[in-house]
């Protein structure tokens, strides 16, 4: 099986790969957003703490 045939998915390539693409995007966002937000929050909190100590 060549890569081209695999990507074509018997003519349903658009539907299959869009479905997998959207899934990947949503799953990634739901992991990355909380991680990024937590890092930001930690940075903010540690800044505030340092200011409080001075």
């Amino acid at each position, binding site marked *: 099986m060549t890569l081209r045939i*695999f990507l074509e998915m018997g003519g349903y390539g658009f*539907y299959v790969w869009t479905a997998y693409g959207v899934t990947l995007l949503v*799953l990634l966002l739901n992991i990355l957003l909380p991680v990024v937000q*937590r890092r930001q929050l930690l940075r903010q909190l*540690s800044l505030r703490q340092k200011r409080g100590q001075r």
Partner: protein
Amino acid sequence: MSVIPAVVNRFFHQTASPPYFYALAERLAPWLTGVFLLLLAAGLYGGLYLAPSDYQQGESYRIIYIHVPAAWMSLFVYVLMAVMAGIALVWRMKLAEVMLIASAPIGAGFTFIALVTGSLWGKPMWGAWWVWDARLTFELILLFQYLGIVSLYGAIEDRRAAARAVSILALVGVVNVPVIHYSVEWWSTLHQGPTITKLDKPSIHVSMLIPLLLMAVAFKFYYLIAVLQNARLELLKREATSQWVKNLLEKTA
């Protein structure tokens, strides 16, 4: 609570303490991610490459390997949230509130995936992106329930009061779960009946079934990873002024 042995009770109290849970979630993350990636790789390889094409639907049926696990998870996460809501209301357990609210965006994500992949599957097979049959309509309502929970929690300033309101909303909405599950049997729908969960043997060839089950377990692990990340963020927000967070900041600084 004499029914529950003291050891179990202690275990729950310890695990439910915010600093312990925060650290535990951090330690678990790489293991969970490893297992998830292995399952995902196996499931995708099996589903997209090894599994034969379907006698009716050709290659288009391969959307099943994300559509069905996502749809299962959309119901599973909601049931978990209802359980958390019950615990939060009765025992006023903080961690249950945190897990409840941490689960909502992930459940919404699964529901969204189920709807979008279903649409992308429905267009070539049924001939329509969307139909207002009972299964699809109630699944769309489930998405609004998740979004409602997220926005209600965001709308109330006091986090404990917000958690209580959200718990009640989550419990009320749980009636939709059996309605979605049985919709294809109770009413005539364009959506076909259940393949795996019917009582006699599943009507899917074993070479197609194995990747599907692998993907389903992979999605469970994904949920664990994502919910723990969300829960850590929520815990930090709630406990920003507490001593353990201060200690944590000093350690990392």
